[in-house]
C-alpha cells in the first residue's frame, strides 16, 4: 500500500466521519425538541419526525462519498491502486467539501429544524414552513456533495 493510497483512504474516512458527526449532532438536537413536543402531544409524532430526519442526510452524503472514493481507488473490489502522493492528496482534498460542509450544515440544519419543531408544536398547520426553512440549509450540503463527487471522478489514476 502506497502513501498516496493511505491519503485517499484518510480522505474517505474523513468524509464519513465529519459528516456523520454533524448529522448525529443535528438529529440529536431535533430529537430533543421533538421529544419535548411528543411528551405533551403524542399526535404530533409524525410531523416532528420529518424535521428530525432532515439533518441526517449529511451523514448519508459522507457515506456515499466515502464509498465512491474507496471504489475509485479499488479498496472496494479487492485491487487497490498504486497511488502517487499527488493522487492521494487529490483524493484527500476531494473529500473535504462534504466532510467540512457536511459537519457544519448538519449542525445548523439541526438548529433550524429544532426551531421548526416549535412551529409544529404551536401551529401544526404551518409545519411545512418549518420543513422548508430547514431544507434550505440542505442546499449547501448537496453542493458540497456534488463538488466532492465531481472531484473524485475527475482524478486521473
Amino acid at each position, binding site marked *: 500500500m502506497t502513501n498516496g493510497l493511505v491519503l485517499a483512504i484518510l480522505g474517505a474516512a474523513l468524509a464519513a466521519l465529519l459528516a456523520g458527526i454533524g448529522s448525529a449532532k443535528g438529529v440529536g438536537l431535533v430529537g430533543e425538541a421533538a421529544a419535548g413536543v411528543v411528551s405533551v402531544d403524542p399526535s404530533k409524532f409524525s410531523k416532528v419526525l420529518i424535521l428530525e430526519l432532515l439533518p441526517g442526510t449529511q451523514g448519508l452524503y459522507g457515506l456515499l462519498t466515502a464509498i465512491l472514493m474507496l471504489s475509485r481507488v479499488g479498496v472496494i473490489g479487492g485491487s487497490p491502486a498504486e497511488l502517487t502522493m499527488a493522487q492521494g492528496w487529490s483524493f484527500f482534498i476531494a473529500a473535504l467539501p462534504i466532510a467540512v460542509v457536511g459537519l457544519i450544515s448538519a449542525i445548523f440544519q439541526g438548529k433550524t429544524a429544532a*426551531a421548526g419543531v416549535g412551529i409544529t408544536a*404551536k401551529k401544526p398547520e404551518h409545519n411545512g414552513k418549518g420543513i422548508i426553512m430547514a431544507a434550505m440549509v440542505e442546499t449547501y450540503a448537496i453542493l458540497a456533495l456534488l463538488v466532492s463527487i465531481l472531484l473524485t471522478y475527475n482524478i486521473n489514476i
Partner: protein
Amino acid sequence: MSTKYANAVAAIRAMENSLLSRNDLDQLINTATKTERENIVASKRGSGAEELTLEGVWETIRAYAPDCRELEILLYRNDFHNLKAALKSMIAGKEPQGYYIRPTNLDLDALYPALSAKDYEQLPEYVRGTAEEAYELLTRTLDGQLADSLVDTACMRAMQRAAEKSGSDFMRKYAQLTTVCADIKTAYRCSRMKKQRSFIETAVCGSDALDKDSLVRASLGGTEGLFAYLEATSYGDAAKLLAESPAKFEKWCDDVIMELAEGARMEAFGADPLAAYFIAAEAELKNLRIISVCKESGTDRETITERMRKLYV
C-alpha cells in the same frame, strides 16, 4: 446561539396551545354563570387536563429544565413573602402554613423552625441576612410595616443581584421592571401617607432605571412632586395612569412584564421561553380571577375588558 433547553422549550410551546386566547377571554366575559365559564376553560384545556395552577406550571417547567437556576428569580417575591409570613406568625404565635404562597424556592417545612431557632444558616443565602435583620427589627420596634418594607426591598435587591449573576438579559429586565413597579407603588403610598424620609429610604429599593435618591426626594414632596418627577423619566405614562387610578397602574405593571415575555415567543432555545410561559400562566390566572370577582359583583363587560391583562398567546 445556545441550544440549551431545546426539549423544554418545545414542550412548553406545545403547552402554550392550552393557554387562553383573547377570544376565549371575550367569551368568558360574556358568560352569565360560573358553570359556563368552567366549561369554556375546560374545553380549552382539553379533556382530562389538570386545573392550571402556578405550582403545577412550576413543577412542569422544573421537570423539563431541572438545572435552570435562573428561573428561580421568578419565585423570589413568593420566597420573601413567605419569609414575612413566617416572621409575623412567629411573633403572633400562630401557625404560618396558611399564609404561605406556593410555588416557592424555600423549604417551607424548614423555614419556621429555622427562624424560631435563629438558625439562619439553614436558609438559602439570598434570604439569610434579610431574615436576621427583619427579625431583629420586628422584635425591637414591633413595627410590622417597617419590617415588611425591609423584606420587600431586600427581595428586589436579591432579584437584581441574581439576575445580574445569571447573565440573562431577560432576567435582568424582569428584575428591573419588577423593582421599578414596586418602587413607584411604594413611593406613591409613602407620599400619600406622608411617611418620613427614614421610612421611605428603607422601603424604596432603586434600580438603574429609577434612581433611589431621586425617588425618595420626589415622594417627600407629596404625590404632585412624585408625579412631576416620574413625568420626567421614561415612566411618564405609568405616572399618568397612577394619577388616574392605582388599578390602572397595576394593570400597566403586569402588561410591561408581559411585553418583556412576548420577546421570548420568537426564541427557539434557552430559558427565556420557559420564564415567559410562567409569566403567561400568572397573567392568565389573574385574568380568570378578575373575571370571576367582577362577575360575582355584577361589574359591566366594558369595565372587565378594560381590566384584562395582556395575554401571551
